């Protein structure tokens, strides 16, 4: 399927995936006003739109509709024309006696290593890892993970009502064979051989919801990020707190303990400053009682650390002071790569907010969109 859209220049474009289509925001030269473009693929469920830092003209989009199966669309002209993958991510045919698995959604997209142009990874629900070597046209299962003998235990299907999600696929920029991924629920896993074998990496992470909280896997990482300049440093926003790890250590440190107790350290996204591995931003949500997962007390705020999690500062200037009960999902917050980065987040209420100067000043730049699943900015 081939679709032609309004011409988009990718630089500075903010791509927005929603429950009902794709949108883009284009700032003026001074980034004072943002023009909304779209909808594209109106009615499609868009989980992720990701630009390729190795080829600025290329983008991939993970899509499905309520009726139809999952697929991937790709563009090689900055989002003007989209072409459907000829072989979308799909599990291999089940052998006799095996439980058959089918991809219900492509949830996550990650460009491959800079030395492998055209290589992309996709994460799905049920938890599957897939690889393309031709820019997203044809996808193959990564057998080392999907058929790993421990896979049924790491990712027991339908552990959560919507099925588990494979996300946060990270490729070490120093070594294409060194990779991480996360499953919600399942935990963080690491491969050092290009995906042939995997091992859990969850020591130090709480799993308060488990009968035995001291388990090697079964955790609920919501979002895991690797610093591009210091790839030994990873941050994790988990169902049970905010963590940092400095490899080769195998133990995560709960840096969310330094958050104000009245706020806690539950949330979905964690975002990094590409220039400074000590800087991270989170957007806490209400994880009390029945887990509303809304802004805490209806007063949304981003929290920033500038010292790798030893302390946190509230950033809410310009955000609603009261009665804002939205949620920001794991793919719906990002930062650009400017020296004084702007942050962007999209809400389940269909609003997009921009926080200039590292989140110091916030303003709303789009509203009335469908429920927002992802916000990404083109590199």
């Amino acid at each position, binding site marked *: 399927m081939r679709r032609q859209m309004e011409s988009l220049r990718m630089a500075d474009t903010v791509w927005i995936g929603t429950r009902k289509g794709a949108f883009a925001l284009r700032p003026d030269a001074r980034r004072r006003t943002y023009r909304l473009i779209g909808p594209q693929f109106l009615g499609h469920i868009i989980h992720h739109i990701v630009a390729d830092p190795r080829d600025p003209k290329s983008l991939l989009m993970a899509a499905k509709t*309520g*009726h*139809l*199966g999952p*697929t991937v669309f790709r563009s090689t002209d900055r989002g003007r024309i989209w072409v459907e993958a000829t072989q979308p991510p*799909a599990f291999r*045919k089940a052998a006799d006696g095996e439980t*058959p698995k089918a991809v219900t959604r492509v949830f996550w997209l990650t460009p491959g290593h800079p030395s492998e142009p055209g290589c992309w990874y996709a994460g799905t629900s049920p938890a599957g890892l897939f690889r393309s070597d031709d820019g997203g046209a044809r996808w193959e299962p990564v057998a080392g993970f999907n058929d790993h003998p421990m896979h049924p235990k790491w990712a027991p299907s339908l552990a959560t009502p919507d099925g588990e999600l494979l996300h946060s696929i990270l490729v070490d920029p120093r070594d294409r064979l060194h990779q991480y991924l996360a499953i919600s629920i399942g935990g963080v896993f690491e491969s050092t051989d290009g995906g042939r074998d995997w091992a859990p990496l969850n020591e130090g992470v709480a799993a308060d919801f488990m009968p035995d909280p001291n388990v090697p896997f079964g955790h609920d990482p919501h979002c895991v990020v690797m610093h591009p300049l210091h790839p030994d440093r990873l941050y994790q926003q988990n169902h049970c707190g905010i963590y940092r790890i400095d490899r080769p250590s195998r133990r995560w440190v709960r840096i969310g303990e330094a958050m104000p107790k009245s706020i806690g350290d539950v949330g979905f996204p964690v975002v990094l400053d590409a220039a400074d591995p000590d800087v991270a931003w989170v957007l806490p949500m209400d994880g009390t009682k029945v887990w509303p997962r809304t802004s805490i007390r209806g007063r949304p705020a981003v929290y920033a650390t500038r010292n790798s999690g030893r302390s946190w500062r509230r950033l809410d200037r310009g955000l609603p002071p009261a009665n804002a009960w939205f949620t920001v999902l794991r793919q719906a917050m990002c930062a650009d790569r400017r020296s004084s980065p702007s942050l962007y987040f999209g809400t389940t209420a269909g609003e997009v907010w921009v926080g200039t100067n590292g989140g110091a000043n916030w303003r709303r730049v789009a509203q009335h969109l469908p429920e927002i699943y992802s916000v990404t900015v083109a590199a």
Partner: protein
Amino acid sequence: MACTVRIASPLRSYTGGAATVPAEGATVAEVLADLERRYAGMRFRMIDEQDRIRPHIRLFAGSREVRVLGEAIGRENVLHVICALSGG
């Protein structure tokens, strides 16, 4: 065997907007394979990788609902592809 396939609106992006298209095949599986040859990518949106009909898709050979892809198209020579979605 020639038959007619009635295409639900969510799938008409594959058929250039056509609501009815011709196809060849004696069984539902054969007709779907022919559709895939004509409209690449269409089958996977309806049928998963384990050859199961997706949850919000219904197929009818004439007036008879199809549960297994090996079923015959039948004398009416019409396959209806229905999209059955609930919720908002």
